[in-house]
Structures are given as structure tokens and as C-alpha cells.
């Protein structure tokens, strides 16, 4: 069954005899299985594969066939390069038959009898990767004792990649739109047809896809060699960070979460590499060593030294009651025609925060205020003031409560 799937293999060109009448000048090279496979998986369903094989080349013309039926390999991207003797070995042409068979035949001219290392590279879709994290938090909730990053690699490409060196690239790369690529393929096909009568197309030096530089992207190299088999998903460890200082913050935002505060964990990505987006699970080691599950969230792309914020959900433990304590409409404005054109609204709010926990909590209150407004006064200084919101930071003692008040003036324009 595996053999049926292992399609992208190099075969002795003897098979291609049925397509090419034997010529005295053509030698058929024998090949060994890939000696090295490098799989680079990008975000957005694109992977770049490099397979290195030894070819036994004879003086003169050699033919090598590579086939990929049943896979998602982009035929326009397949390329063969001689790595050791580029001067002695030259690729004359690549032939792709147009009758639906997924294979390519390279005609390789060699000036010597050689055992040559060649690299076959191509793009394929159907390989995906996703990062994820398990964070273990200490009982005091001031330290992440271990942050384990892992990666899940899913193979739906139709091809097995065994003993592969795996490189993962974060960040979406620029690709030509599918239509354009299709168009390009169509044109190439037409050119090939023009050049060659009959049932096959010939492309000299096939190189179709533009490769983007990866200078702005981050790259993860999986240690050792991995088997990435078709129709399987493999989860591998990526890294482990230890002892990361942790901050607990409760956040209140009535519009977003209602009267109960939501608990957040905050910590810094102290690694020199960024954290790719993915789910993060928060676990806590119990006295009997078992792991308890505290919650789960998704993190966005976090750069090195960037802050990670994890939402652990609403708790019943910290509550804020918000009351409009005063309201006044004043400072009416009229036009020359005595139309009411605007007025001012004054609003006084009272926020009573209660902590039902046995420890002091840090609470961030975010009040979303729309329209054009000024802060006229507040019982404590806001920690942040934006066009559409006010934020207050407060410490609430264990089992205690705190009250703050603020007063805003809004300008309302009618016309």
C-alpha cells in the first residue's frame, strides 16, 4: 500500500523506452533512494521539497524519470540540479507528456562516467503545520515552570517523506494568485506545444515559481530526522522554556464580558525566536504530581521579547458593579435659526469592585466610552486614556472591595 503511495520516486528511464525509441547515444542512469530530504513547510498550504539522490551517469545522454501521480506536487516547479559536477553534467531538456501522466523526463548530458549527487526540488501543497503550547503554572501563580512548544505536522500531500529534515517557516509568504499561476502554466503549455508537435511538451530549464526571500520570516528547524507519512499527523516537540515570571491580571469590560472580571496571564517570550500562533493549554501540577487543566486560549504571533496574554475566562471571583450615579443635559447650543444643534451630557459613574478571593488581585477596569468626551474628574488617576476608552488599574485586597468614581462630559452634536 505504501508503495502505491510512494510515487514521487525516480525510476530508471528504461520505462521511458516506450516513449522514446532507443538511441545509441542515450544511457540510462541507475539511481538510489533519496540520500537526503529537506521539507520546508510554509504557512498557507505551500511546501518546498528538496530531495537529493545519487545518479550513475554515463558519458553522453542519460534519461531520468520522476513521477508524482496521486500527489499535490506542482509540476511547473520541478527542477533537477547537479550538485557535485555542474560543469560536467548539464541538463539538456525536461519533457512532460501531455496525456495526463504525471511524470517528467530529464535528458542529462554528462562528459564523464560519474556518480553524481543531484537535487530534485519542487513545490507541493497538502502539508500543514500548526504550533501549540503547554504551559505549566506553579501553585502560587507567579511562575510558568515550563512552557513546552510543540508542532503538529499534517501530511495530505499524497506522498510520504521519510527521514526528512523539516523546516517550518512562520508568516504568510507572497504567492502569485492561483489564476496567474494557472495562466502561466497554460502559456507554458502552449509554448511547449508550439515547439513540439506530437503528444509531449518540452521545456528547457524549467523554472516557473518565483521564490520569495525568507529573510523576513522566521524558521524553525526540527531536530533530527522525521518521518512525515501521508495521511498522518505527527506532533513533535519544538522547545522548552523554563521558569518564566508570570503576572496575573483581572480585566473588567462590561460591554465585552459582563459584570465578572476575566482572568489573564501575562508573560514575556524570553526566547530569541518568536512564538508562532497556536493554542496554549494552561496546566497546573497538583501535589500528587497529576496535571490539572486550568484553561486554554489561542496566542497570536509573539515576537521575541513580546508579551503573551492568555485569557483564562470569566471567573466568579472578581466582580465590578457599575452605576450611573448622575446625569445632566446642559449647555444647549442653537443655530441662528434657533435650531438645537448640540448640547453637553455629563455622566457620573461609580464602579464598585469586589474581590472574593483570599489573595490580593490586580484589576484592570476598561470603560468604553463612545463619542466626543472629556474626563472631568476621577477618584483615581486612569492608567490609560484613549479616544474611546478609559482604563484604571487597581489592587483589591483579599476578600475586599474598592470603589472608584469618574465624571465625564460628552459633546453631542445633532446637525
Amino acid at each position: 500500500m505504501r508503495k502505491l503511495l510512494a510515487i514521487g520516486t525516480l525510476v530508471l528511464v528504461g520505462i521511458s523506452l516506450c516513449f522514446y525509441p532507443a538511441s545509441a547515444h542515450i544511457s540510462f542512469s541507475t539511481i538510489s533512494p533519496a540520500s537526503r530530504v529537506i521539507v520546508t513547510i510554509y504557512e498557507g498550504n505551500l511546501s518546498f521539497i528538496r530531495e537529493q539522490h545519487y545518479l550513475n551517469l554515463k558519458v553522453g545522454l542519460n534519461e531520468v524519470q520522476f513521477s508524482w501521480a496521486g500527489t499535490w506536487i506542482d509540476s511547473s516547479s520541478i527542477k533537477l540540479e547537479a550538485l557535485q559536477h555542474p560543469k560536467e553534467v548539464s541538463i539538456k531538456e525536461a519533457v512532460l507528456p501531455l496525456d495526463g501522466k504525471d511524470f517528467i523526463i530529464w535528458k542529462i548530458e554528462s562528459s564523464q562516467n560519474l556518480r553524481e549527487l543531484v537535487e530534485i526540488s519542487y513545490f507541493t501543497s497538502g502539508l500543514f503545520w500548526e504550533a501549540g503550547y503547554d504551559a505549566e503554572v506553579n501553585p502560587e501563580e507567579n511562575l510558568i515552570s515550563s512552557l513546552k512548544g510543540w508542532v503538529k505536522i499534517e501530511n495530505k500531500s499524497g506522498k510520504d517523506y521519510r527521514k526528512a529534515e523539516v523546516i517550518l517557516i512562520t508568516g504568510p509568504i507572497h504567492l502569485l494568485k492561483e489564476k496567474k499561476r494557472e495562466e502561466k502554466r497554460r502559456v507554458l503549455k502552449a509554448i511547449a506545444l508550439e515547439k513540439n508537435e506530437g503528444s509531449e511538451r518540452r521545456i528547457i530549464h524549467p523554472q516557473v515559481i518565483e521564490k520569495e526571500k525568507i529573510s523576513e520570516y522566521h524558521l524553525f528547524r526540527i531536530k533530527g530526522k522525521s518521518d512525515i507519512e501521508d495521511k498522518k499527523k505527527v506532533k513533535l516537540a519544538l522547545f522548552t522554556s523554563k521558569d518564566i515570571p508570570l503576572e496575573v491580571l483581572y480585566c473588567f469590560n462590561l460591554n465585552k464580558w459582563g459584570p465578572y472580571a476575566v482572568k489573564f496571564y501575562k508573560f514575556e517570550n524570553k526566547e530569541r525566536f518568536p512564538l508562532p500562533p497556536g493554542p496554549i493549554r494552561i496546566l497546573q501540577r497538583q501535589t500528587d504530581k497529576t496535571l490539572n487543566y486550568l484553561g486554554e486560549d489561542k496566542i497570536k504571533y509573539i515576537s521575541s521579547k513580546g508579551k503573551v496574554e492568555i485569557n483564562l475566562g470569566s471567573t466568579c471571583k472578581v466582580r465590578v458593579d457599575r452605576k450611573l450615579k448622575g446625569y445632566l443635559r446642559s449647555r444647549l447650543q442653537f443655530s441662528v435659526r434657533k435650531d438645537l444643534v448640540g448640547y453637553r451630557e455629563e455622566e457620573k459613574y461609580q464602579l464598585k469592585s469586589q474581590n472574593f478571593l483570599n489573595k490580593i488581585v490586580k484589576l484592570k477596569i476598561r470603560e468604553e466610552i463612545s463619542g466626543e468626551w472629556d474626563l472631568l474628574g476621577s477618584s483615581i488617576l486612569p492608567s490609560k486614556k484613549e479616544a474611546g476608552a478609559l482604563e484604571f488599574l487597581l489592587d483589591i485586597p483579599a476578600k475586599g472591595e474598592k470603589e472608584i468614581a469618574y465624571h465625564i462630559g460628552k459633546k453631542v452634536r445633532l446637525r
Partner: protein
Amino acid sequence: MRKTSAKFLKPLGKSFLSVIGTAIFFILISQTFGEAKLIILPSRESVSVKLKGNGQALVQEKRYLELTLGINEVNFSWEKARINPDSVKICFLQEPEKVSILREISSLNQPSSLIWEIDSVKEGKELSQLSYLLSGWISYDQYRAKVNEREDKISLEAYFTICNESGEDFKKVDLFSEDKTHWQTDIKNREEKRLPHFKVESIPLRKIYIFDKEKWGDKVALLYQFFNGKGSPLNRDFIPSGKVRIYQEKGGELSFLGEGEIKKTPSNQELRLYVGKVQDIQIKKEMLEFKKINIRRNERGIIQVYDTEEGYEITLKNLKEKQIKVEVREHIPDSWEMLISQPEEYIKEDAHLIKYEIEVPPKGERKIYYQITRKNLLPRQIIKPLIY
């Protein structure tokens, strides 16, 4: 990498894995790992189910794995159980430093199974903890509240109902509700169980009569008020929400008073339980005055803004034989000022709500009169989106 052995982790429940599934997996494993052997693992040592309140539960089970030196393969598969495959996790409890997980492999054709490749430098038994999120749980609380004849004490009995639609049977499971109450029980798939949650007797009770037209219409509502927190027999972290059936005990007999609802309430808070509308307290609210004053018009004579003066009279009649206290809640929109208030004392709850507390003697009557002026009111056609 030489594969020394493979283990087959089979959960207890019959529903988890069919024989066919096993056979398929056998083929799959023997294909993938060539020399791999299948060993049926011992059953669960213990299992706990912690309800998360969103239909999901965290399941944690302990099993002994018989490890050999080198690479071990452990397969965990499930057929009908509603396990979130991304949540499945294994960890080791005795000598975790000697056992490490190299890879976790799942087959896309077999979405409900996983294989762990585990590297062990120890030989023999190791206790593992397997955890995963399992959905298909419905749980809720229901209450039975009993008030005494004098209606000054209430007993509250909570029952926890749990329905298992997870696809998995659990035996001797340590079950934890959202508020961490613990039971040890059996619960099969497609089974509903009602478990005693908590019972508290003789909680001091106050009867509250409230008139709030916006909330309960033209009648006075009766609420039972009691406290959860320090100093009260009811002192829990929080009271889960749930339906309450309210009974009164009178001369050894129980009579049903009605149904109410408890909202999720944290500790140190009063709980108010709406019982129903009261027949023998009559209330009438009348508008005695209303005038638009200080009207400002534009050049075309259309009203732009105005003030009002409004007077209201509320009459409370107590048909009972005993004195009662009624909380009268009046909602007053816009910016306003009080001109006259009889009685003088009222509580301004917030910018748009005032509250009178009125004692009404047995078979007696009391009146409230208040006059307000509302300032700078906008006729409806002028009001553009008001922001709050």
C-alpha cells in the same frame, strides 16, 4: 530506531473501541511499525471527570504502563466518545524524568486514535495520567426551598443533575461540579443522574415587597431575601444558578408556593428569590400634574427643547393584618431634579432610579407624592443616537 514494543491503551468502556476498530488498528500498526506487538493494558486505576460548565469535562485517568527500555508505542483510540483529539495528553507521574514522549502520531483516516512514541530509560511499571476534554455533558442545579410558617427561615436543598451524552461509560468516577463539589459515582453513557449537592437549614429570611412597574408591572412583588456568606448558615463560594421550587411548611404539611430562579451569586451577597405577585397589597400610581415649561422653538415654530414639571401620587393599601414594608422603585429617565417629596426620605439608587421604603400599618393606607422637574428634554424627532 528500534521499536521494542507497542502498547494498546484501551479505555474501560465498551463503547470506546469496537472489535473492528481494533482489527484495523492492528493492521495499521503492524504496517507502520513492522515488528510492533500489541499488548492489552490494564484498566484504569482511577478516573475523574471535572465539569467545565460549557458542555465539556476534563477527564483524567490513571493507568500503569508496562514500559520496556527504548522506544515504546502507546496507542489510545476511541470510537464513539466525543473526545476533542487536540486535547488528549499523556504525562508520567512516578519517574517522569526517565520517560519522554518523542512523537505523537495520528492517522487522518482514523481521526479517533493516537499513537505516542515514548522513549524510556526505565523498565517496568510507570503510572501515567491521561487527560482529555470530553463533550456531551449537561449539568444543572435545581433547588427545593422550604420556608417556615412565620416566613423568617428558609432551608435550601440543591440537587445536581448530570446527563452523560459523551459516548463513554464511567465507573467509580470522581465527579466534580463547576464549584468543585465532589461525588464518587457511576455514570453510564445516555444516563441522567440526580445527586445531592448541598443542603442548608434555617437561613434567616426577610420578606421583601417591591413595587417596580418596569420589572413586575402594576402589582407588588414578593421576594425572599437571604444572605450567602460569612455569618450566614449559607456560606458557599458561589451559589450556582437554577430553578427553585418554593414550598411552605405549615403544621407539618407542605404547600407549594411557586417557582423562582436563583442567579449565579458569589459569596457575601444577598440572594433575592422572586416568589410572586401579592394580592393583598394594592397599589395605584397616578400622574397628578404634567406641564411643559420653558419651551424653546426654532424660527419655524417647531419645539427644539423643553422642561417639564411632573407630579405623581402612589397609594399603597395594606389589606393584611400586620404591618408591612414596601420598597417602591421609580424609574426617572433624563436629567431631573426633585421639587417636592413626601415622605422626604428617598434613596437615589442611580441617576435614573429612586427608592422609597414605606411602612404600611395593618389594614392601613400610605401615600407617596413626588414632584420633579425634568430639564432640557428633546422631542422625539430631534433625538439623534444617544450614546450609552
